[in-house]
């Protein structure tokens, strides 16, 4: 009874605190100063057709590096906790249905191609490294579901992951040394606006992020599948 009373009092307080947010706040009509700077100067400065990518990879590149680091730590944690009891299961050999196997054989190359397309064209169309990496990981997941006895080459995964992470930081430092600052993309030529080879180092950085995210997520799924 007392507990419920507390809950009700807390809810009433929350309503009183949040009610002004509903009634008084007006939607923003203008962009803030920072957004105005990005929108006006972004396409000319960085040569990226998709402005979201320009902000994520270059203007806010350090945040993206942090995100990638967080994902790496999460993967390492999952691997640490799940690998302790990893047992080779015999009953994993149960075969998937014909539909799943045939569908996988048909769809897997297309899914991988879509993932690579998404992160290679991150500076032109919506999407980028994270989305492309997840699409690749979901393709590999389909493969794992269709052939449950498949062995993923884990050391190759770790090599891809650590090499792309290292090159990401190296490109960031190159930007610091040759251009305006850490993760600046302008140490490579900007090229023609809207072409595949444009926007300086953004496609390279996003491809590295895509490979890294894909490898990490495949590692997580592999750990989930094999752990007991």
């Amino acid at each position, binding site marked *: 009874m007392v507990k419920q009373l507390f809950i009700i009092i807390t809810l009433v307080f929350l309503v009183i605190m949040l009610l002004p947010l509903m009634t008084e706040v007006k939607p923003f009509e203008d962009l803030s100063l920072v957004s105005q700077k990005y929108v006006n100067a972004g396409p000319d400065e960085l040569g990226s057709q998709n402005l979201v990518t320009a902000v994520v990879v270059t203007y806010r590149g350090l945040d993206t590096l942090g995100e990638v680091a967080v994902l790496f730590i999460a993967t390492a944690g999952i691997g640490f906790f799940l690998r302790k009891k990893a047992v080779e299961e015999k009953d994993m050999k149960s075969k998937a249905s014909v539909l799943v196997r045939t569908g996988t054989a048909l769809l897997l190359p297309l899914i991988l191609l879509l993932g690579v397309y998404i992160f290679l064209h991150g500076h032109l169309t*919506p999407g980028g490294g*994270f989305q492309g990496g*997840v699409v690749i990981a979901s393709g590999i*997941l389909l493969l794992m579901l269709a052939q449950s006895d498949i062995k993923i080459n884990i050391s190759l995964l770790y090599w891809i992951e650590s090499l792309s992470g290292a090159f990401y930081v190296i490109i960031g430092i190159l930007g610091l040394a040759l251009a305006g600052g850490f993760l600046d993309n302008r140490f490579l030529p900007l090229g023609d606006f809207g072409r595949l080879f444009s926007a300086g180092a953004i496609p390279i950085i996003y491809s590295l992020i895509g490979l890294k995210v894909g490898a990490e997520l495949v590692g997580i*799924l592999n750990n989930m599948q094999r752990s007991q």
Partner: protein
Amino acid sequence: MITLFIVVLGIIMIMAALMAIYQKNLLSAIVASGVISLLASVIYILLAAPDVAMTEAAIGSGLTTIVFLYTLNKINKIKAKK
């Protein structure tokens, strides 16, 4: 028109969220939580944020659901052994 569509999607999302909490069958609860992410990504597209929509659809409704399903499968196997 778009506002109406978003309101309808939001109502369905709230219903799916309640279902994910109160549903006794865990499989249905997992699917309901995947539906929330899928509808959220549709709303992001309507609000002209395709980058966020792609992330939400791929991670929220794809990968997270699969990880939950794997875990549920493991739990059921362990229960069946005991």
